[in-house]
């Protein structure tokens, strides 16, 4: 590489070179941060809920006018759903992962949150059928038995036992076995025994855009939620979801037509609903990244074309003095590498700085070095691609041009 001639040529074109370097630096900073945010959204959208998602459909049921015996109506609906061919189990609950809303509560290992570790958790009221209906993975201990299930009407009650997610159990009991330990729901001072731990169950509220460990802090309590307005969770055998889901409205209205069934659909629809904003944002950012790279590439192309046209006689002279076409090509590619490399160095610094600032002020995730690395390579390759045509044009300048000017 003939660094010195390039440098001395650049000295005569400081502004142009600075502009390209600056543009590349800015592009890299924006692209790396945007990629990191897109990746963050994607990992949120794909975070497993802990349920057997492939085989679950859900619906919201609301009876028109309060039924005489709410609990009996719920049981009748559940029996009907479990009778549909292909259904593994069904449960009526206050909420399920990603539904949105949900019951939030503070729990602690000590009454009144004194001194002990505490956490904000989503409360899921579940019956003995809950484990099978949601398809959760029990890591230790046991699930609720039918005899333990209480009734939860409008308001909170003392609970004898609870099943926690692994994430919550490790937060509350960082050392030692959570099984058999006692937790307290704030405001209700009676002890709740931890009888089981499930691998994973996401909170009812979708993961917020930027890191929140509470996303998997969920607590199951042994209650039938007795309320007009319930979420039904139905799990089917593989491959039978659609058939069972289509049979559901008819089967339920055979019990009574006095009801509104809302949001009947496979769990994937719940997921889509929960993350629609993050998805839209990812698309917008993706489009921005693509356009930005295109703009930078074309900008580099345009400016290099101009430099070539400025230096036609200089190039002709070099050709006349014995430079081969490959030398001219190499000259322009090297020059571009030098400028873009400077831009990349600036961009790495700027991108990391911007990321740190956003992490401190806006709570975004810290960007992994992989993104800035990927971005740097992308920008370098792109700008090399952008000079192919101008360099080719430069290389085809005839040596005779030099003679003409003299």
């Amino acid at each position, binding site marked *: 590489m003939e660094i010195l001639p390039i440098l001395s040529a650049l000295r005569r074109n400081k*502004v*142009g070179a600075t*502009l*390209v370097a*600056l*543009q590349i630096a*800015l*592009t890299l900073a*924006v692209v790396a*941060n945007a990629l990191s*945010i897109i990746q963050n959204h994607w990992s949120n959208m794909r975070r497993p809920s802990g349920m057997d998602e492939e085989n679950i459909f859900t619906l919201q049921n*609301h009876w*028109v*006018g*309060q039924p005489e015996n709410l609990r009996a109506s719920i049981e009748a609906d559940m029996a009907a759903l479990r009778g549909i061919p292909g259904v593994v189990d069904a449960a009526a609950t206050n909420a399920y992962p990603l539904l949105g*809303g949900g019951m939030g509560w*503070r729990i602690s290992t000590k009454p009144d*949150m004194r001194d002990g570790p*505490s956490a*904000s958790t989503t409360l899921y009221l579940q019956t003995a059928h809950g484990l099978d209906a949601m398809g959760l993975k029990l890591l230790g201990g046991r699930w609720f038995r039918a005899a333990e299930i209480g009734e939860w*009407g*409008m*308001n*909170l*009650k003392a609970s004898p036992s609870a099943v926690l997610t692994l994430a919550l159990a490790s937060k509350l009991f960082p050392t030692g076995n959570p099984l058999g330990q006692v937790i307290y729901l*704030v*405001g*209700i001072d009676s002890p709740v025994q931890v009888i089981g731990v499930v691998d994973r169950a996401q909170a009812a509220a979708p993961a917020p*855009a*930027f890191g929140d460990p509470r996303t998997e802090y969920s607590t199951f309590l042994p209650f039938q939620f007795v309320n007009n307005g319930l979420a039904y969770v139905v799990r089917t055998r593989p491959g039978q979801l659609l058939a069972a889901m289509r049979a559901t409205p008819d089967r339920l209205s055979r019990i009574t037509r006095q009801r*509104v069934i*809302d949001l009947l659909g496979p769990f994937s629809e719940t997921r889509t609903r929960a993350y*629609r*904003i*993050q998805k*839209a*944002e990812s*698309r*917008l*950012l993706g*489009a*921005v990244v693509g*356009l*930005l790279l*295109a*703009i*930078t590439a*074309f*900008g580099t192309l*345009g*400016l290099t*074309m*101009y430099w070539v*046209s*400025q230096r036609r006689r200089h190039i002709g002279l070099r050709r006349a003095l014995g430079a081969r076409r490959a030398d001219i090509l190499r000259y322009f590619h090297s020059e571009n590498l030098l400028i873009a490399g400077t831009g990349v160095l600036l961009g790495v610094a700027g991108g990391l700085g*911007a990321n740190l600032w*956003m992490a401190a002020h*806006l*709570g*975004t995730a810290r960007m992994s070095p992989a993104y800035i690395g990927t971005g740097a390579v992308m920008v370098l390759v792109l700008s090399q691609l952008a000079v192919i045509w101008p360099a080719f044009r430069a290389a085809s300048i005839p040596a005779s041009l030099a003679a003409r000017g003299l």
Partner: protein
Amino acid sequence: MSGYYFHLAIRCLRGNVALTVLIIAAVGVGIGATMTVFTVLLALSGDPIPAKSSQLFAPQIDVWGPAARRPGANADPRLPDMLTYGDAVALMQAHAATRQAAMYGISQIILPPGREPIPSGGRATYRDFFAMFQVPFHSGAPWSAQDETAHRNVIVLGAKLAAKLFPAGDAVGQEVTMEAGAFRVVGVIEPWNPQPAFYDPSGSAFFRNEEFFLPFTVAIEHRIPGGWLSCHSSPGSDWAGRLKSSCVWIQFWAELPDAAAVRAYRQYLSNYAADQRRSGRFGWPPSVQLSNVRQWLQIEHVVPDEVRINALLALGFLLVCLVNAVGLMLARFAGRSGAYAIRRALGASRLDIFLQCMVETALVGALGGGLGLMLTALGLIGQRATLHYTSADSSRLTHLDTSIMTLTLIVAIGATFLAGLYPAWRAARSPIGWQLKEQ
């Protein structure tokens, strides 16, 4: 003279089509991306009720005490953002503001005779709500004070629900049956959907639709629960228990027209909290807060951080496009330095050259702005499609109105103008003789 420059500019633009297209595309795409994100940001952080945002106030009372805000507990460090039922009723009865309304969101299934039931969301509130928030009425009027005190079953319908229930004609005077009973329609409002829905911090501030309004007292009497309940102790075991509990679930807004009224209301709130402490309800120094709409949106953190981040990225994007434009413009003017030198030699001043370059720049800016406008519209359609904004009245979030359009053009021309300054200055300063010699 400027007509001549304009003519020259067009000729120059046509002279090097590839470069011209490139510059215009760079400016247009930059503007388009930036304005798309910016429009969403504006819609999200806009003042939902500009005429009165400084006169509407939400009170907060420290009903849970400092223990609930213990920093180590990682609990919400703010005062509760809603009121208990008891406090809301006390504030209503005190009538210390010009207008005031307690409220909470409810849902009901409407039962039109002989048709499918319609689940819908609405609001239980007081009649001052309508005047206070400037809700436009299509027909009828808010219910009367007597309706409120007599707990009459009256209802105000939203525009869409009214059209659905009574497609034939005026709904006022008709009866609507829902789960809670039969209600007489006293008014129908025009489509009304302030963005963000600042008055209710529970649930989403942007996907709310008030389809009907009931008197607060009637909703309480019918035991229609709200969707939201925030507690630091047991909410009791029945409806009466809930009304007595320290759970917060009622929103409250007061209209205070001037600084004196605000001072007086603040004093009233402090006195109220002090009374509560004297009566033994609060075991801690009383603490209250009174915020107007703008302060309230800050407290509630209504604009999500993601949107700010997107705006930052979009700004970075615009910057790249502008740097790009500066470079290309520089190339463009420098490539024509010979022509400028001839004009200078024929007597044009440096200012003339500079002006000629700037006219050309402005033209590029205008064209880029037009492209940017189209791209913004496209971007917003894309946003709308992915967000499932189906109904016309919730599309305000991503709506391209004339003010945004004007702003886009101004930003485009202003930005290219800035980008053109240095290249034009350079072009105007290039020496005559040297350039001519090169010809």
